[in-house]
């Protein structure tokens, strides 16, 4: 992507502004973590929303993802699918109710030997 001199001058000012915004949101993140919301999970959700917003600024502006060749978006689409899969896998593993509690927990079944 070719950039004109004037374009770049504008970009530099924009990068600086984004930097300031990121610093401000860092202060907000720290401040919010000391505010006790109704549940701690709410604190985590709010914190992650702020972090995602900051991360989006870095990706879109600093990493130029707001105007890139389409091939990069295709690569990132694959990555997003797989990384989402990772978290879904965690969800399945966590929700799996098959917790083995020992052979003796099933008296009268082939696993538990003779009933007591």
């Amino acid at each position: 992507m070719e950039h004109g001199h004037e374009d770049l001058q504008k970009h530099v000012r924009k990068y600086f502004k984004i930097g300031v915004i990121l610093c401000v949101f860092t202060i907000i993140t720290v401040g919010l973590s000391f505010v006790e919301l109704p549940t701690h999970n709410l604190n985590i959700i709010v914190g992650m929303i702020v972090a995602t917003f900051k991360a989006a600024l870095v990706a879109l502006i600093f990493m130029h993802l707001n105007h890139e060749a389409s091939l990069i978006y295709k690569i990132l689409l694959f990555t997003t699918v797989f990384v989402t899969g990772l978290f879904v896998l965690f969800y399945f593993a966590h929700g799996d109710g098959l917790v083995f509690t020992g052979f003796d927990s099933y008296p009268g079944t082939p696993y538990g030997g003779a009933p007591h």
Partner: protein
Amino acid sequence: MDIPFTRKPRPDTGLYNAKLGIWLFLASEVMLFGGLFSSYIFLRVGADYHWPVHELNVTLGFVNTLVLIISSVTVVMAWANLKMRKIGAYKLCMWITIASAGIFMVNKSFEYKAKFEHYGVKLKDGTIVTGHFPEGGYRIEVEGGSKVSMSVKTGDPSYFLAYAKGDAPKFKTAAGAEIELNGSTWADLAKEAKEAKQNTITFTAVSPLNLAVKESATFTHTANSVTFRDGTTVEGTSVKDAMTLQVDKVDVRASDDPDKSLAWHYMGADWKHAFEAHRKHAAEKYKSFDTKDARFLRHVLQMEIHHPTVAAHNEAHPAEKHAAEAKAPADGGHAASGHDSHYPEITIERKDIAFWSNFTPKWNTYYAIYFILTGLHGMHVIAGALVLAYFLICDKKLLREDPDHLANRIEVGGLFWHFVDLVWIFLFPLLYLL
């Protein structure tokens, strides 16, 4: 052969080759960190202890976040300045970026060091006391050492003699010769023993052999012998097997009964009263919370200590002072203050300790994932800084002859650098704040 499309985009991909390369690499990096973030969730959801919140140094983490944001701005500015052929500004921005990486890692090392030197002790009733060891650390004292058996293969006399108290002890060999045990006498004896196909050499102490052994240097120890990690066993009476700790926090959240916590046995009645005052005060302050809420427990059933005596503690917590004074007996508890310590010093019997460790992966899964995530991230910071430093220092010829090619390199290095910043944006709240 020249690598094609280093400067101009390739017609079919629309990208210069290095940019396609770095994005493919970043895609795999997303998977790597994604896997670790997934583990973080797994460990946190499955934790059977109170997950630490605000337990790391928030100020250091905050400063490091700002440092990384600044370096992210400067690296993208370096690229823009190079594109505009403002070489001076380009170089300045690059140096600031590399210096930021240095500051980040120095801060990180302070943070790690603090964790390595800070200890948690879980008592048998579930109470956790944390703090620092006085000079020398946790020592097991052994007196009247008589027989020493050393392994011919792995033994090293300097290993156990480093913990001997007083003058260098003298020993008698099995043959009856009196020797001073050191590197050269040991080497001779070990050589003889090897020729005689002997596995161990036994000595008898002929001068007093008293030891103050660092726990981590031992393999096992009993009431009448201690075995070192090099296989040396010293027979002698264990006169003290207790840990001296300068306590900076008492956490009774997992205690069977906070009022009867073992901590008060060691800290004394005064500190117990101070805790009761703290508990009452905090319960009042957080009364809108459910009493089973983890946050309520965190504020109410933990007491941080920054003063060597109860009196100084009460001075600093006037709101809690009144209640404490009303109950405090005239004489103090038996927690003595260390000489240069800012904390009360207690000596915990080994039999009352269920588990102890410094704040490393051994302590709990939170510290395991903390060190893995921040360690891996730190390595990325170092790698990114090295690559950028290479472009700045070693690519002088490219800067003169083909600055657009160099600008592409800076852009690619910068993309990696932004990714490192992006990971930190999530790490900071997850590990330090929430």
